[in-house]
């Protein structure tokens, strides 16, 4: 069923495993599933993650500088974990499809 649901649902679903994930792991995964190649697709997915975090559904737990350019050289990389609120919202939206 992947590729057929809103992108933020899919992002939350990936975080529902309760593990911490780096944005550079999530973004390429979504890019591939939704066929959103290129910098525009990448930044727009990353912005979705930022919005989820500022909405209190994801928590930014760790940052590091992208020195080698694995994602975006010289920028910050973020590691997120789902919050209780995110779990509730994510379950509302996603669980019945899982």
């Amino acid at each position, binding site marked *: 069923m992947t590729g*057929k*649901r*809103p*992108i*933020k*649902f899919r992002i*939350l679903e990936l975080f529902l495993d309760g593990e911490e994930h780096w944005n550079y792991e999530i973004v390429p995964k979504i890019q591939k599933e*939704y066929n959103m190649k290129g910098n*525009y697709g990448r930044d727009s997915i990353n912005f*979705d993650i*930022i*919005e*989820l975090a*500022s*909405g*209190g*559904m994801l*928590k930014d737990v760790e*940052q*590091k*500088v992208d020195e080698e350019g694995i994602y975006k050289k*010289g*920028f*910050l990389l973020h590691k997120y974990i789902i*919050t*209780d*609120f995110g779990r509730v*919202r*994510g379950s*509302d*939206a996603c669980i019945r499809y899982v």
Partner: protein
Amino acid sequence: MDLKALKTQESKRKISKGYMWALFCAVFWGIWYLPGTVVWVLNPFDEMYKIIAGTSGDAESLVVTAALITAFNALTVMLALMLWNGVLGKFGELGRTLKEFNPCSKWFFLASIFGGPIAILGSFMAMGFIGGAFAAVAALLYPVIGSVLAYYWYGEKISKRAATGIIIIILGGITIFGGGVMTELATGKIPWIGYLGGLMAAAGWGIEGAIAGKGLDISEPDVGLTLRFLGENIIWWIIIVPILAIVGFPMYSFALQAFEPLTLLVLIFAGITFGFCYVCWYKSFPLIGVGRGQGIGNLYGLFAIIFIFLFFGEIPEWTILVGGTLCVIGSFTMFTEETSALETLRGE
């Protein structure tokens, strides 16, 4: 650059982006009152108002005409938004989100009920009966309702500073409404429908913001917004306009007459400014929160007064100026917070 500096920079960038969107919203929103006021004197709406007033009275005629104008406004906004989503390449996401009725679309349709037939209709009523400046400034009260609802409903934080801002805005609101009613008591004729419209605008938009925040947190703003206007178009063109026609108002004959160049141009102008004001509004919410997004968006009152003065040469009543200034000061108080407090907007 070290990690800490980079973090501060990134957080600042995010917040300033949120404020920038909110400011753009204010400019577009302020401009919207120009076509919104002008459209009342254009064919077929001026004709429609006169004819219905002759049979049903001024008040009823005003509301029915405002309904048709609001319906056209919704239609042109939808056109502007479809173009916007096309440019961003978001039609796919639009379809995916629309299908998620329970978690998403439901909220957007609910938001459209409060936004459309309450807030926008109320604004047009206030514009038609009292004037653009009053309509603009009366709606300035909406962040109060939005913030309080967001606080009780999903625990969005309201800091002391934001609360102070809210109180100042309320004082401004009392000046605008109270002052206007006092002046008109002297003349003995109070345009109650206009004041009712002003209140509808404030309450409707405040509730809309809080409801939209609910579906918005798990969807994309551009998409959510388009669905909200899809909802409004359904409400107007499939429910309200046909009902008014069945009741006996000549809705369709006047609707068809709206397709003449000048009227269309003004309606499209209204659609573009209003559509993009909403785009910016919704984009600011996830970055700075509903309360703050609405607070800065509130500067539109100032812009509206300036634009109305520049284009129509109208200077509003002093009560509107003083009340409007208080509202803008209140908005500034709400948004000049320490940025560190904004890192997470909701309690955990």
